[in-house]
């Protein structure tokens, strides 16, 4: 049975239970928000959107981090893998959250704390890549 959520960016969005991403651990700053949809906006490639179901006003634009760094392969530790029930780090779908302001040149991507999704069970988490050398605000458009 499908449900509908009204969100500021995309209007009425229909979804079924199987579409819901479960971020059991929440995200730093947004701990109470655990249920999200992955939305592909129309004509907004290569961006995708992590839309909160708990608080429809909250929506994070995301991008495949390999747009910025072709060799980007985050290594999850065993606890992080266990949380998502991933057999291997490389089985996860990885997204970087981006920050978009009025000036396109100011757009940044957070390569330090990616969202990792296990599409087999729809569990997801924001993983902090401690000591990776990646930054939280890598420019999207390199000069």
């Amino acid at each position: 049975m499908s449900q509908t959520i009204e969100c500021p960016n995309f209007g009425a969005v229909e979804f079924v239970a199987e579409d819901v991403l479960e971020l059991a651990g929440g995200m730093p700053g947004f701990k109470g928000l655990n249920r999200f949809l992955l939305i592909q906006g129309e004509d907004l490639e290569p961006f995708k959107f992590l839309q909160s179901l708990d608080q429809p006003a909250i929506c994070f634009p995301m991008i495949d981090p390999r747009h910025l760094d072709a060799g980007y392969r985050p290594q999850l530790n065993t606890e992080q893998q266990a949380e998502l029930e991933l057999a291997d780090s490389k089985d996860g779908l990885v997204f970087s959250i981006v920050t978009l302001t009025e000036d396109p040149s100011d757009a940044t991507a957070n390569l330090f704390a990616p969202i990792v999704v296990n599409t087999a069970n729809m569990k997801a988490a924001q993983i902090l890549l401690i000591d990776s050398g990646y930054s939280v605000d890598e420019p999207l458009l390199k000069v």
Partner: protein
Amino acid sequence: MLVFTRKAGQSLMIGDDVEIKVLSIGTEQVRVGIDAPRKIPVHREEVYRSIVEQNRRASQSQLPSRELLRRMKSRR
């Protein structure tokens, strides 16, 4: 906030399985060791705070502008 005075080598216990130990004390820095189950993430406060800040900023993002989409495309 609970405040304790500790010497190098002394510890605090939080619950049954988190131990915070003062390893050494210098003039401007203390070295602290933490023993905690791996399911409890431990982060430097400023690192965690930077993620909170970036997540907040990202949540206030506008939709990608045509200009940004155009420039992303022309990069590939």
